[in-house]
């Protein structure tokens, strides 16, 4: 079943995917996206990253994104888990897993969810580098990725 979650603790991607598809033999495809912390951003080494969010709105926005994916494609389940707090390089930040009967829908919906999340869910990254802390700038590529999916009726 569908689930969205925001948490400080690391998540277990395999357990999330197992829960997503448990007892549903109609599922033929699970596509998952795992976003990981990189040790380099814009050419500079990054020691740690701290993720801030807007509690309440975050969950609501993730639920709205999942609902939109459900409306666009025939899906068997969607799961989004996003971490907040302090992370180190190589640690998972986010998991988006989508189950469907055939693979096309799962690929489309998984990429859609992460593209919308990147521009619509209220998370902010702050990096700690050798030269101090800095807020990560929004990537123009993310706005372009979102735009490919067309406009939804909501703002």
């Amino acid at each position: 079943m569908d689930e969205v979650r925001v948490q400080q603790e690391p998540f277990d991607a395999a357990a999330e995917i197992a829960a997503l598809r448990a007892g549903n033999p109609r599922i033929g495809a699970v596509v998952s996206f795992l976003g990981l912390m990189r040790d380099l951003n814009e050419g500079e080494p990054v020691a740690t990253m701290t993720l801030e969010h807007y509690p309440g709105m975050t969950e609501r926005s993730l639920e709205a994104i999942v609902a939109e994916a459900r409306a666009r494609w025939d899906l068997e389940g969607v799961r989004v888990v996003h971490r907040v707090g302090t992370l180190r390089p190589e640690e998972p930040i986010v998991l988006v897993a989508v189950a469907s009967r055939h693979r096309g829908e799962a690929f489309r919906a998984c990429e859609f969810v992460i593209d919308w999340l990147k521009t619509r869910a209220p998370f902010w990254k702050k990096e700690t580098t050798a030269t101090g802390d800095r807020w990560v700038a929004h990537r123009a590529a993310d706005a372009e990725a979102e735009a490919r999916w067309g406009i939804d009726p909501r703002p």
Partner: protein
Amino acid sequence: MIRLRYFASLRERLGVDEESLALPPGVADVATLRSALRERGGAWAEALAETRPVLCAVNQAMARPGDAVADGDEVAFFPPVTGG
């Protein structure tokens, strides 16, 4: 009264994370609220300048400049998001 919240770099620039405010006269939507906050001057004028890419949510849903703001609302201002 409305509840105002600020996040991330905007919160740091303004030095405040939330406040309660009587709806200022003439404020009826996101654009007029932002303009009223700018009139506080200093960091407010700078951080909320029209040229800055500031996002707004009303009652925890993304809002556009023309969206209504009314008594009892929770209104948040923040920079473009960078999760995922």
